[in-house]
């Protein structure tokens, strides 16, 4: 059953396209923010800092903390409250994994081959988690690669410890896999691609708007307001040194959140006629 679900993921163009868009988006963001801008600023390429003016707010990649911040496998953010292409792509990958069977009726042969619906869900969760992990590791490799190229260009030492780097990259890969599962569960609940994508966007926008309002009203962002998917994902790739939710806690909280939604999808799958 698991192998069948893996085949379903690898034999559709839409999933491949989602991964390709995510990787391409991540490369574009990371190359620009982590490699090109610091290189411009340092004068390694381009006319040099003076010609560009003082407004160029490039990463200063000399400290270990800055290097850890720049290596984000979820894509370095260009501003608070934005949703990165890389994260969107893996969420959409998950929604597609959850809805394709419904769109073209593939759920019928699946349920015929395995009448125990719980096992169908297990196979889908495992296949999507594996696919998400592969995407997450790819994202981590891309971010690490752009950082190393940037450091080479700027002739800067790698100041972050390998252990810390591994922690950020690993946390990111896990977060990406969990995002894929979140998309999967939303997709199974929604059953239609469009509804799944819209519900997912709605959840993300809700998080952005809710946090903006909470911040406006309270003047700060309390910990409970950060127990939402995007914030937990960002916390999972933080170095943990800057306060906020520690990475391990963030991954665990994200996993718990995803588990709840997956459980809801399981209840729906079991109780609905196909």
């Amino acid at each position, binding site marked *: *059953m698991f*192998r069948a679900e893996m*085949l379903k993921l690898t034999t*559709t163009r839409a999933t491949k396209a989602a991964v390709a868009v995510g990787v391409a988006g991540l490369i574009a963001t990371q190359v620009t923010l982590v490699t090109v801008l610091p290189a411009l600023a340092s004068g390694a390429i381009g006319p040099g800092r003076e010609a560009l003016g003082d407004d160029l707010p490039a990463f200063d990649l000399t400290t270990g903390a800055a290097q850890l911040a720049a290596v984000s496998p979820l894509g370095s953010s260009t501003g608070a409250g934005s949703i990165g292409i890389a994260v969107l792509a893996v969420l959409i990958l998950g929604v597609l994994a959850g809805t394709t*069977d419904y769109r073209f009726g593939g759920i019928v*042969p699946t349920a015929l081959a395995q*009448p125990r619906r719980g096992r169908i869900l297990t196979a889908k969760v495992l296949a999507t988690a594996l696919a998400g992990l592969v995407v997450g590791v790819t994202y981590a490799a891309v971010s690490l690669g752009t950082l190393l190229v940037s450091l080479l260009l700027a002739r800067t030492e790698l100041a972050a410890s390998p252990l810390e780097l591994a922690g950020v990259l690993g946390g990111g890969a896990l977060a990406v896999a969990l995002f894929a599962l979140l998309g999967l569960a939303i997709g199974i609940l929604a059953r239609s691609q469009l509804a799944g994508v819209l519900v997912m966007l709605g959840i993300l926008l809700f998080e952005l708007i809710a946090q903006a309002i909470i911040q406006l009203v309270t003047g700060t962002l309390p910990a409970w307001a950060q127990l939402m998917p995007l914030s937990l994902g960002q916390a999972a790739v933080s170095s943990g040194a800057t306060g906020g939710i520690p990475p391990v806690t963030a991954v665990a909280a994200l996993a718990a959140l995803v588990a709840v939604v997956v459980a809801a999808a399981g209840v729906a799958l079991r109780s609905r006629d196909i």
Partner: protein
Amino acid sequence: MRLWPGHSRPSREDRMRTVLADGAVAKGSQHAGSMTKSTTPALAIRELSKSFSGYRAVENVSFDVLNGRVVGLLGPNGAGKTTTTRMILGLAAPDSGEALIHGRSYRDLERPARMVGAVLDAAGLHPGRTGREHLRIAAAQIAAPPARIDAVLDEVGLAPAANRRVAGYSLGMRQRLSLAAALLGEPSILVLDEPANGLDPAGMHWLRELIRSFADAGGSVLLSSHVLSEVALVADDIVVIAQGRVAAAGELQSTVAAHGGDLESFYLDLTATSAGVR
């Protein structure tokens, strides 16, 4: 409803009678299929009922499909044939009653695809995958050996088109692909819902032969179809469902004998009185 005694010589016209609509089970199973040794009915449908928001779609439906028999399931649109089929296959849960496959419900079967192959209306074919990819997924789902994929592709005549995307398939080719997936597990029972939909005349001819030889080898077939002329050519028994209930059931030839052997005239007479849902 009548109960026929079993016969010891299974031939086209007077093989052991199969179909019971009153819930009784025919036990006179001298006939043992080459595929199955069981003496229980291949399919035993027992007082199955299901309602959708107050509307009684299926009400107290009972019939059997015995080994080696082709049973035609007939009825007007909306009579409850599809709902019955979906309950047999565990896709929909009955409100009451049960559908047993060699004595066990579909959801309790260990390896259902090795026992039952099904072709349903919603064929579940993703247009972006090739025919072979669909069968690879189906084979992985039921742990069938990969060699079966080429075997069933040959059997349904799709081998030349196996590596083309399903988006370019005609309706008839999709039906063949669904049938190939149903045959993957080498089942002893086939459940076919309008399998001739979209098949060209050569395809219908081929399907008829396939069903016939499947049953002659001891397999059982539940064939739901609107094309009475095709059913008349291939079925041993018929079950007519109208307004959710069994309106008639029995051996084909003797059931339609009173209508000069014409299935269409028998059927139209029977369903006209029950004012079929359109």
